C-alpha cells in the first residue's frame, strides 16, 4: 500500500482566551483536541459533526491559516506543520480550499480574471499573459461557466455561480487536495446538487482528493468514500461510508444518522433525540466527551476516556459500549429504522 497523500497525527488546536487588564490567558477553547486521519490520493474523506465541534478548525489548520498547538501534518511524506511561511508557500499549492459562503469568499474588488489568475501567478505555474488568460478561460469552462465572463465582478454572479468560481480558483493552483469547508451548505437544494456533482466529476477527471467538511449527511452518503465523525474536538468514529451508514458503532453517529430525513413516507425513523446542548469546548466533560448527552451512559463513561478501537478493517469507534458482548450492548439492540 502506498503512503497516503495526507496524514494527520494527533492534531491539536487550542485557542487561548485572554481577559483582564493585562490580557492574561484565562483559559483555552479546546477546538480540536487530538485527531488523526489519513487521506489517500483521489479519495474523499467526509468530516461530519454538528456546529462548533471543530470541523472547520481542522480545515483551517491543514491550510496553516494559524499555528497548530501540537500534532503533525504530513503531506506526501513531508511534515508541513512546522515549516516557516516562506518554506510552506510552494507547498500551499497542493492544498486548496472552497469556503461555505460564496459571497464573502471572493474579493469584491477583483475581477474574476484576477481572482483566478492569482494562484497561477503566485505559484509561477504560467508566466505568459496570454497563456494565463487561456488557462483562466479553460478553468471557467471546466466549472461550467462561460469563458467570456472573466471580465465581470463577483457581484454579477449568483450564489451557485460564485461557488463555481471558488472551485475554479481552487483548481487554478492544480492541487492534490481540496478542502471543501461546508462548500454546499449555503446553496439551495437544486444548486447544491449541481455543485456536488461538479465536485464528483472534477475529482474523477483530475484525481483530486477531497476533505469534505459537512453536516449534511445525505450529501456525504452520496459522494464520500470514508467518513470521520467529530464531536467536541475529537473523532468519535471513522470508517468507510458503508460501515458508518450501515453499521454505526457510536451512539453519537447513530443519533446523527437518525436525524437524516428519509424521502419515504412509509419509513418511520427511530429518531434518537439528544438532550441538552453540546458542552462548552472551554470545559469539555471528563471521561467520554459525549457522556452528558449519551442515552446509554454508564459509570465508566464518566471517568475513563474511550480510545478509538479497531472494529473492522478501517472501522474505528471510541465508545466503551463496544467492549460489552454484542447481546448486552444496548446501542446495537435499538433498531436504526423501524
Amino acid at each position, binding site marked *: 500500500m502506498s503512503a497516503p497523500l495526507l496524514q494527520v497525527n494527533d492534531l491539536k488546536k487550542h485557542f487561548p482566551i485572554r481577559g483582564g487588564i493585562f490580557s492574561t490567558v484565562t483559559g483555552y477553547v479546546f477546538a480540536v483536541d487530538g485527531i488523526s486521519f489519513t487521506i489517500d490520493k483521489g479519495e474523499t474523506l467526509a468530516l461530519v459533526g454538528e456546529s462548533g465541534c471543530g470541523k472547520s478548525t481542522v480545515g483551517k489548520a491543514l491550510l496553516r491559516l494559524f499555528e497548530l498547538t501540537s500534532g503533525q501534518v504530513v503531506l506526501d511524506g513531508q511534515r508541513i506543520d512546522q515549516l516557516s511561511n516562506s518554506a510552506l508557500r510552494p507547498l500551499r499549492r497542493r492544498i486548496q*480550499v472552497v*469556503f461555505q459562503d460564496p459571497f464573502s469568499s471572493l474579493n*469584491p474588488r477583483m475581477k474574476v480574471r484576477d481572482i483566478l489568475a492569482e494562484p497561477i501567478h503566485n505559484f509561477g505555474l504560467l508566466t505568459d499573459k496570454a497563456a494565463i488568460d487561456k488557462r483562466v478561460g479553460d478553468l471557467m469552462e471546466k466549472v461550467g461557466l462561460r469563458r467570456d465572463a472573466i471580465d465581470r465582478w463577483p457581484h454579477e454572479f449568483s450564489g451557485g455561480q460564485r461557488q463555481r468560481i471558488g472551485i475554479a480558483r481552487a483548481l487554478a493552483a492544480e492541487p492534490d487536495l481540496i478542502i471543501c469547508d461546508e462548500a454546499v451548505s449555503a446553496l439551495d437544494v437544486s444548486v447544491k446538487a449541481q455543485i456536488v456533482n461538479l465536485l464528483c466529476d472534477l475529482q474523477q477527471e483530475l484525481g483530486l482528493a477531497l476533505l469534505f467538511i459537512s453536516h449534511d449527511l445525505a450529501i456525504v452518503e452520496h459522494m464520500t468514500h470514508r467518513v470521520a465523525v467529530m464531536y467536541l474536538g475529537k473523532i468519535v468514529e471513522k470508517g468507510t461510508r458503508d460501515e458508518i451508514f450501515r453499521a454505526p458503532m457510536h451512539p453519537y453517529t447513530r443519533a446523527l444518522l437518525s436525524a437524516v430525513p428519509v424521502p419515504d413516507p412509509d419509513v418511520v425513523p427511530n429518531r434518537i433525540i439528544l438532550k441538552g446542548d453540546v458542552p462548552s469546548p472551554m470545559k469539555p466533560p471528563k471521561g467520554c466527551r459525549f457522556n452528558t448527552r449519551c442515552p446509554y451512559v454508564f459509570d465508566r463513561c464518566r471517568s475513563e476516556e474511550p480510545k478509538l478501537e479497531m472494529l473492522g478493517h478501517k472501522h474505528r469507534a471510541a465508545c466503551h459500549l463496544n467492549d460489552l458482548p454484542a447481546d448486552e450492548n444496548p446501542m446495537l439492540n435499538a433498531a436504526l429504522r423501524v
Partner: protein
Amino acid sequence: MKDNLARSLTEQDVVVARELPDILEPKKRRSGLIGFAFRHPAIAIGGGVLLVMFLIALFAPLLGTVDPSAIAPSKRTRAPSADFWFGTDMLGRDIYSRVMYGARVSLTVGFGVALCASAIGLVIGLVSGMVRWTDGIIMRVIDGMMSIPPILLAIALMALTRGSMGNVILAITIAEAPRVARLVRGVVLSLREQPYVDAAVAAGTRMPKLIFKHILPNMLAPITVQATYICASAMITESILSFIGAGIPPSTPSWGNIMAEGRSLWQVKPFIIFFPATFLSVTVLAVNLLGDGLRDALDPRMAKRI
C-alpha cells in the same frame, strides 16, 4: 351555422400578432461627463462647487480683487455695493477680496489635513491591525490622544508654536490622525478574517500583495468617506483657530479670521460675517456631498447599477 363559424374563425380571424414595441426600452447609458453627472449627482454637484472654489483660490488676483490687506479708514464698514460687492470691514478692507483670498487658506488646510491625516492614520492603522503585538501599545497611545477633544488638542499645539499655515495643518493633522488610525485598524481586523483573505493566503499570496490587493482596495470606501469628513472638519477647525486668534495671523485673510474680526459688529453689520460664513458652509457641504457620492461610486456593487 357551426360550420360557418368554424370556417370564419379559421379563414378570416386568424390573428397575426402585431409587432409590439418592447415594453421597456433598453436603457441607454449615456457616456461621457454628462452621463457620469446624471448617474452620480452628488459627485457632480459636490465636485462642481469644489472646482469653483479651487478656481477662486487659484485665480483670486484676477477676479476683480484689490489687495486684501489694504486699509482704508475712511471707507470703514460700508454695506455691500457696486464698488464693494461684499462691503468693507472695520479697517476699510474689501471683504470680497478677503473672502476670495481666504479660499486659499481653507482649501489648503482642508485638503492638506485630509491627505496627511489619512496617510498617517492609514500607516498606523495597518501596522496595528496586521502586526498584532504592536496593537496594544498603539491603541493605548491613540486612546490617550482621543481622550482630548481635537479642537482643544489643536489649540494646545498651536499655543506651543507661532501661527502659520504649516503649523495649523500640522496641529489639525495630529488631532485628526488617531481617528483614521482607529477606523483603519477596525476595518483591517474585520477584513483579515474574510474567507477571501484566507483563500488568498492558501493561494500563496505574499503579505505585501495581500495588503495592496485584498485589504487596501476594500478599505477605499470607508477611508474616502472619512477623509472627506476630516477635510470638512479641518476647514471648520481652522476657522475656529483663526476665530479665537490661535490660527493664521490676521495679515493673511482666512474665512475664520474674517469672521473673528466681524464678530463684535455682527448685530449692526452682519454682512461682514455672512459672506465668509456662507463660503465656508457651501464648501463644507460640497466636500461632504463629494464624499457620499464617492462612497457609492467606489462600491462596485453600486457602480454597475442600471
